[in-house]
């Protein structure tokens, strides 16, 4: 069977949709003015920028466009939310709570705050991959200023009960931020229904360009800017705005929402086919997280007795792109902090594989993957000095 180009890492990044490229084009060629300039060219860019802002605000149920700040991506949004809100909380509230399996874009600023006179609590998820309300209740303190818990985890795809967590947080007078980079456009996302004070989004996860993101900041939320300068974005994020990027983000988001209901069904069935297919053709595999509340597009599996990077590279040689939580794939000593946080032993975490489907994934793509994957595992297990010893049988 000929090799085939099968991209199954949509959770890492997505191609830019042709409709998004077309929507951005005029902002490179004609409407390239500085939106902060007063003359026609500037006003046109300003109008375009503000229309993009309105479209995004509308799409996520914000009560006013000025609650949307355009940023350079999910990482900037997360950094701005954590650092910006904590910088403005009263002296009496210096405590931050984040989940232990947040993206590094949240964990790193949290760790920085921990070294800068704030106190940080890392909330461990359950083995099922969900943060438990009672654990949050127990962690909240009178001096808790902010809680940041992602809407869905970017590795194992488990969805968190954000509404409940936000309510519990507010009952203690703290603010709630959620990193929604993985859920925007994939699950219904309405800031008022979820009751969050801040939320982070990224363009390149929704078939928009890289280098653009957004931060929802509920009106009145205390906030100090991360980028200081000309005072753009309502004095909350300085820098000449990426107008084309903002248009691309708005366009990408509207396409996601228009297609969400049908697409989530289609993606979920592809995802389930991946899970069943692997369970049926490869022994000693399991799903990483058991929580039923899952993103429609991510399958995350543990393949015992193999190392993730080796799997990844062998699949790559067959034209298939996936990602893994093994240490070697990140160059760090530890395997994925996400897997460790849900109690997955390191030796198994090294053999984890994330398969994430998306807009351009076909059933044929999935079948191709399911065809080429088992022989690769067999070969790698045969090469391992441990597999036979650990699992008795020679692999098949």
């Amino acid at each position, binding site marked *: 069977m000929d090799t085939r180009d099968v991209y199954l*890492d949509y*959770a*890492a*990044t997505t191609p830019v949709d042709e409709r998004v490229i077309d929507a951005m084009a005029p902002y490179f060629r004609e409407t390239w003015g500085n939106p902060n300039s007063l003359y026609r060219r500037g006003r046109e860019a300003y109008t375009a920028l503000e229309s993009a802002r309105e479209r995004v605000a509308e799409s996520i149920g914000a009560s006013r466009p000025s609650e949307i700040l355009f940023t350079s991506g999910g990482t900037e949004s997360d950094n701005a939310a954590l650092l910006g809100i904590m910088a403005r909380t009263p002296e009496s509230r210096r405590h931050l709570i984040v989940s232990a399996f947040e*993206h*590094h874009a949240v964990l790193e600023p949290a760790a920085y705050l921990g070294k800068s006179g704030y106190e940080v609590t890392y909330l461990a998820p359950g083995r099922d991959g969900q943060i438990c309300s009672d654990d949050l209740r127990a962690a909240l303190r009178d001096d808790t200023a902010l809680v940041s818990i992602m809407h869905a985890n*970017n590795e194992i795809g488990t969805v968190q009960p954000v509404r409940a967590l936000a309510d519990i947080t507010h009952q203690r007078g703290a603010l709630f931020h959620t990193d929604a980079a993985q859920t925007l456009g994939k699950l219904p996302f309405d800031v008022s229904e979820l009751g969050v004070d801040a939320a982070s989004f990224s363009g390149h*996860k929704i078939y928009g360009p890289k280098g653009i993101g957004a931060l929802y900041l509920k009106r009145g939320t205390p906030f100090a800017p991360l980028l200081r300068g000309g005072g753009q974005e309502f004095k909350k994020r300085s820098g000449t705005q990426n107008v084309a990027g903002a248009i691309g983000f708005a366009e990408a988001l509207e396409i996601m929402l228009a297609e969400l209901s049908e697409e989530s069904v289609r993606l979920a069935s592809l995802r389930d086919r991946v899970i069943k297919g692997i369970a049926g053709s490869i022994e000693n595999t399991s799903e990483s997280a058991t929580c039923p509340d899952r993103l429609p597009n991510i399958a995350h599996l543990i393949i015992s*007795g*193999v*190392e*993730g*990077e*080796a799997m990844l*590279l*062998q699949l790559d*040689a067959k034209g298939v792109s996936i*990602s893994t939580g*093994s*240490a*070697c*794939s*990140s*160059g*760090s*000593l530890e*395997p994925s902090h996400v897997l460790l946080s849900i109690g997955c*032993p*390191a*030796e198994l975490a*090294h053999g984890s594989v994330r398969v994430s489907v998306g807009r351009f994934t076909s059933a044929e793509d999935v079948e191709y993957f399911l065809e080429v994957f088992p022989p690769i595992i067999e070969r790698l297990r*045969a*090469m*391992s*000095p*441990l*597999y036979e010893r650990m699992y008795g049988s020679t692999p098949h």
Partner: protein
Amino acid sequence: MLYSDKVMDHFNNPRNVGVLEDADGVGEVGNPVCGDVMKISIKVSDDHIEDIRFQTLGCGAAIATSSIVTEMARGMSLPEAVSITKKQVADELGGLPPAKMHCSVLATDGLKKAVDDYLVRHGREPIAIGTIAHDDPDFDPHAQGHNDASDVHGG
């Protein structure tokens, strides 16, 4: 992070994979918790490595370095074999990304252990003992890898 073509070749077509049934010496290093384990078995005749096989659980670099080290060691005298350095292994592969240098230590340590195993079995003095990084409790295999652009946590 990019692997050289030679690394990819040895990863995709590893040489000397397997176990020698009647091995004269066997060495195993690494730990599944760290994600890499390597086992080398050798046949020795008049203190030269006559035949050699490996099994490795690990990343692309771990498998490629295992494969190349078996090629390098075949036919060497035992003192020559245990003196193969991680740098020689990496060079032989056309270089390794900084974050992966430790994998070549896995390969050389495995070989050293196999040689010492042979010597001890024959009541002789081990010659590699003390030079095996994995025997050092403070050994941090990833210590080198830490200012490398590849060392990122992606999407």
